[in-house]
């Protein structure tokens, strides 16, 4: 065996004065960082295995553990950074594609942080949400151009809609990529707060059919778990074309994660790899998409809105326009910072565009074509807090999806190792011993709390602007100002510079 050049990313330090040798760390670390030697009655650490998930630190009863960045410094080089060099060592050793989890972590501009919200002063009053009604209810689905009345009676039938008590939904995360307890947590939270979770392409586990009223069921290129009962179970159907963390490529759930439950839900043999092709093999162009949209509508007797999800790529505006014209009721756009359970590192970090620009471009384009009002626009791809949501809606979104934020609420520590299946927090794993660490009732409470907290914050900010219904913020770009942006950025975002 040749010498491995891989070095630890993290340094695990144990304060021996504090350590009581209870071995909680040993039991908790699925990466087997901590080891207990019976003979010497001592604990040792394998730094190389540590992913920095903080499970041991959080659970250590005496706070004896510290995790630090491993202080290994290459000779300073602005071009050849440690990450770049280590990646080459890894690939020279493995000959494989570099994998990673969660969203793009590179320091690209975060446009949310260059947008500022407005508030009322003197010329119109701000509204106190504790005293006045403040509405954040949102309906997703196709809207008619106009309402027709005959003799004062409404004759127009409104197409089926998804009713949300707040404009925040849980992103598509499949059972398989995350644990059943994680899906249960999100489903229960969605029900409690009055919003939707999305099945991803993992099908709907039998235990979750009771949450159908709060589910958006996905149909992706692998067609896993898709059958009539599944399509009928949700309030809407989403066709997944692409994902922000891996635009243009398919998915791969390794066989070791396909246990009995996953196998039954996805309708594939136990232990077999679940491969989602890069394209849908029945969609090679926009007219094919139209056929799938209408096949799904036919199959559900036109009772469910159909959404189409795409990754934010260069030509996103034209593609979105095509999707609207192909008959989709909801368009979901996932930005290049969107998370995932597993993706090739280079794709994640280099393909796609920021959701803020994609959203602005799509909303403007659909308005220029006078079709924006017909469809709903949902955005995803790193919505980190309630202010990001306000900005997204002001740019033109109807609602947002949150994935990473939702998982953080469940306990995720953003170690980006979801693809290993060894998630110590019981989220991105199918190992029964790890899965049981996530109590779905507590998870549901935490995820619901997050939504409630954000709802309060949204109401505060809306009231501050003198707005008492979320739809009056939608596409209301005058409520935004840009700071530290180029003229070109401002033009694409359709916002003025701060001070203008």
């Amino acid at each position, binding site marked *: 065996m040749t010498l491995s050049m891989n070095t630890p990313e993290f340094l695990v330090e144990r304060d021996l004065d504090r350590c009581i040798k209870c071995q909680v760390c040993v039991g908790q670390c699925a990466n087997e960082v901590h080891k207990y030697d019976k003979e010497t009655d001592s604990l040792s650490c394998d730094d190389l295995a540590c992913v920095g998930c903080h499970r041991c630190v959080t659970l250590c009863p005496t706070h004896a553990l510290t995790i630090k960045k491993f202080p290994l410094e290459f000779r300073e080089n602005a071009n050849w950074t440690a990450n770049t060099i280590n990646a080459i060592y890894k690939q020279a050793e493995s000959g494989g594609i570099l994998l990673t989890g969660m969203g793009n972590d590179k320091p690209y501009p975060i446009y949310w942080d260059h947008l500022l919200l407005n508030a009322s002063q003197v010329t119109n009053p701000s509204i106190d949400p504790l005293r006045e009604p403040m509405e954040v209810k949102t309906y997703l689905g196709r809207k008619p151009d*106009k*309402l027709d009345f005959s003799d004062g009676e409404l004759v127009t039938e409104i197409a089926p809609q998804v009713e949300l008590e707040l404009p925040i939904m849980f992103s598509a995360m499949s059972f398989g990529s995350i644990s059943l307890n994680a899906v249960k947590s999100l489903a229960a939270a969605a029900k409690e707060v009055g919003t939707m979770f999305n099945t991803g392409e993992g099908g709907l586990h039998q235990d979750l059919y009771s949450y159908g009223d709060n589910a958006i069921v996905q149909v992706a290129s692998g067609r896993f778990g898709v059958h009539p009962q599944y399509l009928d179970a949700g309030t809407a159907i989403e066709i997944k074309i692409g994902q922000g963390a891996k635009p243009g490529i398919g998915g791969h759930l390794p066989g070791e994660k396909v246990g009995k439950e996953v196998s039954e839900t996805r309708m594939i043999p136990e232990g077999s790899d679940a491969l989602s092709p890069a394209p849908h093999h029945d969609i090679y162009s926009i007219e094919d998409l139209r056929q799938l949209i209408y096949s799904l509508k036919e199959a559900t007797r036109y009772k469910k809105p159909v959404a189409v999800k795409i990754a934010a790529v260069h030509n996103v505006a034209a593609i979105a326009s095509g999707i609207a014209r192909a008959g989709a009721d909801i368009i979901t756009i996932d930005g290049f910072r969107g998370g995932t359970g597993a993706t090739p590192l280079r794709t994640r970090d280099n393909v796609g565009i920021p959701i803020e620009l994609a959203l602005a471009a799509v909303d403007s384009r659909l308005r220029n074509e006078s079709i*924006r009002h017909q469809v709903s626009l949902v955005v995803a791809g790193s919505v980190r807090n309630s202010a990001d949501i306000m900005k997204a809606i002001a740019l033109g979104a109807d609602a947002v999806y949150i994935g990473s934020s939702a998982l953080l609420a469940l306990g995720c520590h953003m170690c980006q190792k979801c693809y290993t299946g060894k998630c110590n927090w019981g989220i991105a794993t199918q190992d029964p011993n790890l899965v049981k660490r996530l109590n779905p009732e507590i998870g549901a409470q935490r995820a619901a709390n997050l939504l409630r907290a954000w709802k309060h914050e949204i109401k505060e900010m809306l009231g501050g602007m003198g707005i008492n219904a979320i739809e009056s913020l939608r*596409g209301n770009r005058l409520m935004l100002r840009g700071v530290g942006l180029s003229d070109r950025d401002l033009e694409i975002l359709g916002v003025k510079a701060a001070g203008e």
Partner: protein
Amino acid sequence: MLREGQVRIPSGCAISGIINRKGNRFSGEKIIDSIAVMHDRSNGLGGGFAAYGIYPEYKDFYAFHMFYDNLRAKEDVEHFFNEHFSVELSGIIPTRKVSSIKNAPIIWRYFMKPLPDKIRDSELCEDEYVVQCVMKINSKFSGAYVVSSGKNMGAFKAVGYPEDVGEFYKLEEYEGYTWTAHGRFPTNTPGWWGGAHPFTLLDWSVVHNGEISSYDANRRYVEMFGYDCSLQTDTEAITYAFDLLLRKHGLPLDMAIQTVAAPFWDSIAHMDEKQQKVFKALRITYSSLLINGPFSIILGSKNGFVALNDRIKLRALVAAEDNETLYVASEESAIRAVCPKPERVWSPRGGEPVIGLLEGADSI
């Protein structure tokens, strides 16, 4: 400094409206007296009036009131008029010198009918054809601005206090059955005549007090339906919203009102099933036309007017009735100034319209 249309300028204001529901005409003096009481609600940077029934002898002609910055603009627009309309009569709108009214543009008036050939070629109905012409002039002809374009009605506006504006235009010499007035308090000083209220389109006129916080959502929605919000004012967006709902989409008046001042979801939840369906459809379809933030407006048309507050009544609005005359104003004093003892005075609730229609008219 950027003028209105190049920049958005918020403003507070005073409004007043009087209608004789039997259609009896009265001079402009009364509305001037009413709006003058609220002098302190404006700051001399804009005042104006809309008058209905003032051109009975030309009631079948579109009456275009125009502002021109220079003769070149006038020539260009008149060339455009001659291409698209048959002009029955044109001439200057009479004014008198008033010391406080300065920098008047060229103010001209035309009575016209669209050329039948042109309408046929455009495949539009007559009203829509006129709307397109108005949009074109306001957006494409530099230095020209359409003040009003309806039949048997006109708007008179200027930079100045409303009572001075009334004197300037000799409004005591006109007789109409409906008058609305506006005194403006902009928080910026563009000093541009086109920016004063009322804002009009065909025979719609809107005077408005308030600063709507939903402006850009409303604007971007109506722009999808072919309107060009070149002035960037709330009033312009509100006018187009009503034009879209009432004229283009043919909504019943009460439904249009319930769109811009929509009931809360909580109230809808307490309605019976049939009503729920209607109001849900309205809010879902026209969510972008909800007018948010403080406003009181008077929407005028040939059939009368509707006065309306925002749904949580963030602006004052008072109404009064005396025989066949209906009054609305920002302040009760403005009504009592011209009708000291009305039969009934009331303060309409937020979102509750005050509707004054001519006898025989079933909608605005």
